[in-house]
Each structure stands twice: as structure tokens, then as C-alpha cells.
């Protein structure tokens, strides 16, 4: 069923249906939460030295599955085998002891401590500091992930922070390494370095369970892919033998819609940003003299790894931070000193990245979240008095138009899955027919089907003559959507260039070249 490019050992079926060539096997795993069957009869196996992808939409059950393997959640039914022995870890410590390591999508590192101190904190019985530092240097060099154990986490890039997490796992010599969406924070060059490391690990016999929904990287780098849909295994395939569209179709359960870019004509300049300079937000980067123009019907893509000024840029455009006169001008009107409500009235709308707590209030209903930005433009208030009926029908319109899966507008925003809430947040702004819309990471953590719908909605909005700015870490997305592309790096925005004819490599250099991350020596 799978092509094992890296597999070292091939052993025969020993007769009772259990092949000894597998390192890990899950048999009929099931886990339910109130109202949700997160995993249902999940079975798959991972061979030694195999890079095995877990592929699925958000809410397909990937996280629950790996949490069971890592001892964070106990299965209701089924069993797991690791290296021929029953694997039923009571907690992550037990899982680590039996050879399972995991690198989470969100890092758990203390900024104020050094690399070595952070690694020591995560170990069950850390060796003396000098020995540990030596081991870190050895291991990180051996796997092409150079790290200085004495550096403080605060001074590291996202890619380097991830190295710390990986090295922390490698120090305990895992047999099975779980990686949860590792490339979501990396530039293409950084991702290449990571894959070289994973190859090397696999070649030495370590199995890797790789969670992602980036189909291209799974097709290029994984030997085998188990596809989950609604908590069940849909199939186990060799990803290189299938196109990205076929994989996506298996994931979503239907043919994916292709994004339609046609029918757009750039018109007059709508939004002009000039000389925008701002103070750094929390853990962010100050903007340095950022400037660009967006025309009606045009999409400007702004790429770059989060933390390079993206948060500050969208805050400066949404009006959460105000600026000097002349920095934000729309249709000839200077909005620089205006707050978010005045900018909304003028037609400049925004959708920030963080859905929970920024773009939406998790503890409030969808109706109330519709009021959050729609109050004035949608006439949900008159003289300050809220019109709950109008708000409810606006929320219902968003739910219907953007296929938000929810019991109804009375549901709390926090109860929705990430993708559904994101559709609601983007839909809320798009349905207000903005003159200019700025979105940050519009499809972050969103499954392929929802991402395609959001992208199409942004293209349609531009098609109707709005100026759209998409800030994203996902380069494929930016190349697919935008007419012009600019990179935001360390608070500096590169001059926008037309996307037509731009290759991924060129884009990566615009982003990563100036990023200042030391290029690792990758063993060929």
C-alpha cells in the first residue's frame, strides 16, 4: 500500500497477521467527547524509519489520535502496540519513557531562559548542565540543526525555537517522533532544513508521524499517509502516487473547488499607506516606514513569518493603533487618526489573525459577535440601542452565505471549530461590502475545504471592486490569490512586485534571505 523509500528493514509476516516490521500499530482506537466522536475505530501502522503523514481536515481527529499516542488522552476502546509491546501510556512521561517524542505546533519555551535551561526543564532527569550543553551541541550538529545552548530563547527565530523543541525530543532517542504541523511557522528554506533532518532521522531508523494539511510537502516528503475524515480512517496511501487534488478530495470527501481568479480589473487607487512607523506590540516588531498602495479590484499579498510586524500592521490599518497624519489614506480621506469605528464607517474593514479573543469573543454568541464589528455599518444599533433581531438575522446571513457549521446564531463562538469560526469572522467582514479589506492569516489552521471557500470569497470581493490586503505566512495561498506580492520582514516591507511569474524560490529569498537565520549545513 505504501512506498517506503527510507524503510530499512523488511520482514516477513510472521503468520498471525502481525508484521514485526512495524514499529507502531493502532488497533480500533476510539475516543468520544461529549457530543463528538473524535476517533472511531482508527487503525494504522508505522514502519521503522518511515515518515508517515496523518492527513485530515480540522476536526478530523488528528490531534486526539496523537494525544492518545503521547499519553495525554486515554482511548475509550482499542489498543496500541509499540515495538511489539502493548503501548498504554498513563501520561506523557510514560510515553517518553517508552520512546515516543512529540514536537507541538505551539512551543512551550520560556523566553527568559537559555536553550539549555529550557531543555533541562523538559527532561525527567536532566544531566549536569555542562554535560547537557555538550550533548545539545553534539546532537544539534549531528542533525544539521545548529543551536547554541547558551542563547536565550527570546533572541531566537521561530525556526530556531522549533529546533530547540526537536533537539529536546532527540536527546531522549525516540523511536517514534510526532510532529504537529511543524512547517506552519517556517520559511520555505527553513522547512527544507527540517525535512533534511527528518530524512536523516528516518534513515537511522526513527519513525516519524507527521501531521500537516500542506498537501505538497506531504507528497514530496512522506512515505505513507493515513487520511482521516470525521474521526475515521479513510485510507492509507502512498502520497507521491496521488495528486494534491486527489489527496484533498479524500480528505474533504468531495472534489475541491478550484479558485477562480478571472474577471478582475484593477481600478483606481483605494488605499494608500505611506511612511507608517509604529511601536512594537507585545513580543512583536516595530514597523519601519511601511508604504504601499492597493487599487480597487486588486489583491495585495503580504508574506512573512509571523512576528515580523504582521500584528502591528493590521492594528495600524484596523485603527486599533492610530498614526501620524497621512499614513493611512483611503479614497483621498486621511483616516490615520481615526479609530476602528470611524474606519469601518469609511469602508476600511479588517479581520485579525487571532479568532479567539481578538476577531471574536469566545464566550459570546455568534449574534453578539456579529454586533462586534457590524453594529454601525449593518444598522444593528440605532442611537446606541441594539437591535438584537437585526443582529440575529445578520449572523444568520453570515452562517448561510459562508457555510458555517453551527446549531445556530445563539451558539457561543468558542464552541465552533477553528475553521468554522474563521469562516464566520471573514464572512462577517465580507458581507459588510467593504471598500478595502485587510485580513491577517485568513486560513491559518483551517481545513482545505474551508480555506478554498475563504480564498474564493476574498477573490469575489476583489472582483466586486474592493481593495484587498492579505497578510499570510502561507506562500502558496499568497501566490494563488494576490496580484502583487510584498514581504514583511523585521518591520520592513519590501516594494510590492507583480505575482505573475514569481517562483516560490524567489519569494522564499525575499522572506528568508533577510531573515537572518543561520543557514544550516544540510548533509546531502
Amino acid at each position, binding site marked *: 500500500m505504501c512506498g517506503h523509500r527510507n524503510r530499512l528493514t523488511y520482514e516477513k509476516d510472521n503468520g498471525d497477521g502481525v508484521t514485526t516490521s512495524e514499529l507502531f500499530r493502532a488497533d480500533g482506537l476510539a475516543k468520544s*467527547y*461529549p457530543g463528538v466522536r473524535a476517533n472511531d475505530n482508527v487503525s494504522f501502522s508505522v514502519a521503522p524509519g518511515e515518515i508517515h503523514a496523518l492527513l485530515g481536515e480540522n476536526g478530523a481527529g488528528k490531534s486526539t489520535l496523537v494525544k492518545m499516542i503521547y499519553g*495525554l*488522552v*486515554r482511548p475509550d476502546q482499542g489498543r496500541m502496540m509499540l515495538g511489539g509491546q502493548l503501548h498504554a501510556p*498513563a*501520561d506523557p512521561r510514560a510515553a517518553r519513557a517508552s520512546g515516543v517524542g512529540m514536537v507541538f505546533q505551539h512551543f512551550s519555551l520560556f523566553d527568559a531562559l537559555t536553550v539549555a535551561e529550557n531543555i533541562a526543564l523538559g527532561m525527567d532527569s536532566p544531566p549536569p548542565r555542562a554535560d547537557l550543553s555538550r550533548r545539545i551541541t553534539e546532537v544539534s550538529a549531528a542533525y544539521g540543526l545548529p543551536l547554541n545552548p547558551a542563547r536565550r530563547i527570546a533572541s531566537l527565530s521561530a525556526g530556531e525555537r522549533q529546533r530547540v523543541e526537536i533537539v529536546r525530543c532527540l536527546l531522549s532517542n525516540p523511536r517514534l517522533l510526532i510532529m504537529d504541523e511543524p512547517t506552519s511557522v517556517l520559511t520555505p528554506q527553513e522547512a527544507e532544513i527540517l525535512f533534511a533532518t527528518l530524512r536523516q532521522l528516518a534513515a537511522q531508523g526513527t519513525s516519524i508521524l507527521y501531521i500537516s494539511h500542506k498537501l505538497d510537502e506531504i507528497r514530496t516528503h512522506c512515505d505513507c499517509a493515513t487520511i482521516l475524515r470525521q474521526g475515521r480512517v479513510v485510507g492509507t496511501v502512498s502520497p507521491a502516487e496521488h495528486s494534491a487534488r486527489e489527496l484533498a478530495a479524500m480528505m474533504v470527501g468531495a472534489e475541491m473547488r478550484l479558485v477562480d481568479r478571472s474577471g478582475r480589473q484593477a481600478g483606481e487607487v483605494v488605499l494608500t499607506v505611506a511612511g507608517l512607523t509604529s511601536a512594537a506590540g507585545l513580543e512583536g516588531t516595530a514597523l519601519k516606514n511601511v508604504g504601499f498602495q492597493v487599487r480597487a479590484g486588486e489583491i495585495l499579498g503580504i508574506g512573512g513569518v509571523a512576528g515580523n510586524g504582521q500584528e502591528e500592521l493590521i492594528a495600524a490599518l*484596523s*485603527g*486599533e493603533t492610530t498614526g501620524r497624519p497621512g499614513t493611512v489614506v483611503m479614497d483621498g480621506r486621511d483616516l490615520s487618526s481615526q*479609530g*476602528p*469605528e470611524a474606519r*469601518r464607517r469609511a469602508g476600511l474593514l*479588517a479581520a*485579525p489573525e*487571532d479568532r479567539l*479573543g*481578538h*476577531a*471574536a*469573543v*469566545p*464566550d*459570546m454568541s455568534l449574534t*453578539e459577535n456579529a*454586533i*462586534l*464589528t457590524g*453594529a454601525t455599518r449593518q444598522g444593528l*444599533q440605532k442611537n*446606541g*440601542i*441594539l437591535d438584537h433581531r437585526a443582529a440575529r438575522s445578520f449572523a444568520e446571513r453570515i452562517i448561510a452565505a459562508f457555510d458555517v457549521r453551527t446549531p445556530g446564531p445563539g451558539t457561543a463562538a468558542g464552541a465552533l471549530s477553528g475553521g468554522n469560526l474563521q469562516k464566520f469572522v471573514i464572512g462577517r467582514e465580507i458581507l459588510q461590502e467593504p471598500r478595502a479589506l485587510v485580513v491577517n492569516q485568513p486560513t491559518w489552521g483551517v481545513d482545505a475545504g474551508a480555506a478554498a471557500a475563504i480564498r474564493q470569497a476574498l477573490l469575489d470581493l476583489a472582483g466586486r471592486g474592493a481593495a484587498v490586503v492579505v497578510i499570510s505566512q502561507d506562500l502558496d495561498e499568497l501566490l494563488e490569490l494576490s496580484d502583487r506580492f510584498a514581504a514583511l520582514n523585521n518591520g520592513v516591507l519590501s516594494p510590492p512586485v507583480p505575482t505573475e511569474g514569481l517562483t516560490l524560490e524567489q519569494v522564499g529569498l525575499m522572506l528568508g534571505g533577510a531573515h537572518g537565520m543561520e543557514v544550516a549545513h544540510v548533509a546531502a
Partner: protein
Amino acid sequence: MLRLEPRTAAPWWLGIVSPVMAVVATMIVGGLLFALMGFDPVASIRTIFWDPLFGPAAGYSRPQLLVKAGPLILIASGLAIGFRAGIWNIGAEGQYIIGGICGAAVALAAYPAEGFWIFPAMVLAGAAGGWAWGMIPAILRNRTGASEILVSLMLVYVAQRVAAWMAFGPMRNPEGFGMPGSRNLQQYPPASNPELIAGTGIHWGVIAAALAVLATWFLMSRHIRGFRIRVAGLAPRAARFAGVRPETLVAFCLGLSGALAGMAGLFEVAGPGGQITDSFGSGYGFTAIIVAFLGRLHPLGILLAGLLMALTYIGGELAQLMLSLPAATVQVFQGMLLFFLLAFDTLTRYRLRWGTAR
């Protein structure tokens, strides 16, 4: 090892049950405490919670219920709005005192003039005084980032000194034979806040409290400003995104709760209290914090909690009188009530688990 584990879904009715359970637990533990002190627990509890309303002396004590509940509800209504936004005005007691002084100042300056304008002017002055006292922590927080909790609390002690100074100095009754304290406003009809319907305890302050309950309900559930206040408390970044300026919100919440506390002080000085003395502040401002939380920061809940808290005041006094329970009884009761409320609230959001397994 005992652990707290978050509940995945807390049923909605727990929010209503938990204050009721807190009241019951307070009665039980309070009864135990009285038993240990050598009093009859059942008689004590009955004296505190039952007799003020239905006992032999209820004719006297029942009107007192609204007299005590009025200022508590008025102050708590304002505090709850700030608490919803995560703005912690702990100094309502000080705003209450300054409001009373400012309102009394208008009356004493006008004395012995006659005129229907005097009382409304006092109400305005009382509200303005409380507002100004509340704006001090607001301005300090907005300008320097000083904690409004500490500043508002410390200003209570400043206000108490101001009250003592007024009682011994500028406001001392010239016909008072040198006794500290201002003229008694109950004896100056244009400035007095009398019982409006005999035997009910209703004075203008009680009517203001009822209006405050209605107004804060309208503000919080029907008005965009109340909506934004709730957003600010639940998700500050989302509030900024929606267009809330944190500085404005701090000033609005501290100013409003200060003004309502100031009005409560004025109604007290012109009515039941009668005069500015060095001990004018009687703890309403602090008790109102308990009322606000016991009432779930909801106007209707605050109404009920205010009445309950007033009951413990009256019942405590009655228990002192009838059973010679110590004077601290009321404070012990109120403290226990808040303690149990917080404890039961924790248990509605978390469940207790033994061991480390999941």
C-alpha cells in the same frame, strides 16, 4: 493529591444555585460558630434571617430593610458595570463619603433658604462629588498605569479623614454647642430626604436604587456601550478591535460607579444619617462589593443580594440586642457569604478529582 479539573460544560442553572448554596452554607457554618460560642444556633439564625421580617418586632425592622438595601443596591449597580469590564473600583466607600459631604455642603450653604431647587441641587452635587473622587483613580490609571484597585482603596481613607475634618471644622453645626458634626438635615425640610410612604422605609434613595437597577439592566443588555463593556471584560483585544478606547472605558466605569456611590452618600446624609459626622462612612461601599458579586453582577441579582445583605445588617443588630451576640457578627456573616460564594463558584467551573490520572 486533590486536583481541580475544569468542567467541560457547566449547566447554566449552577450560576443561580451557587449563591443560594452560599447562603445556606453561611447559615450552617454561622450556626456552628454560634454554638461553639455558647449561643443557641437555631435561635441565632432565626433572629438574624427570620425575625427582622416576620418576628414580633418586624413592624420596626421591616422598613429598615429598604433603608439599608437602597444604598447597597445603588452602589452595587454601578460597581457591577465596572466589574463586568474588568475595572475594579474598590473605593466606593470613599466616593460615598465624598458624595455625602458635597451634597451636604450645598444644603449647609443654602441654609436657611427655602426652595424646591435645593434637594435636586444636592443630588447633583452628591453625584458630582462621587464622580470626581472616582475620576482620581481613573486619571491615574490612564496617565501613569497606576492600579485603580489600590488608588481607589487608599482614597477611602483619605475620604474618611476629610469627613472627620468637615465634622470638626468647616461643617460643624454653629448651634451644636461645640459638638462635632454638621447640622441635622432632617430638621431642614428643603434639604431632607424623608420617608415617602410611612412604614415602608422608602426614601428617594430607594427610588434611585430601583431606577439604577432598571437603567443598568438597559445599559448592559440593550445598549451598545454596555455590550462593549461586556466585550472588554471578556476579551480586551476584541474590545479594542471593536473600537473601544480603554482609557474612555476606565473613565466611564469609575466615573459612573463613583457618581452612583456619591448619590447613595447624599441620600444617606439627607435622610437616615441626617448629618456629616466623623464616622459618616458606615461600610456600605465595601458591602456593596459583596452585593455585586453575590448578585452575579446582574441587575436583578443585585436587587435580591442587596435585600439579603440588608437583612444580615438588621438581623445582626437584632441579634446583638436580643441575644447579645457580639457586634462583629454581621461582618463575620458577610465575610462568610463572600467566601462561600467564591468557593461554590470555583466548584461550578471545576470539579474535584483525586489523583493525577485523567
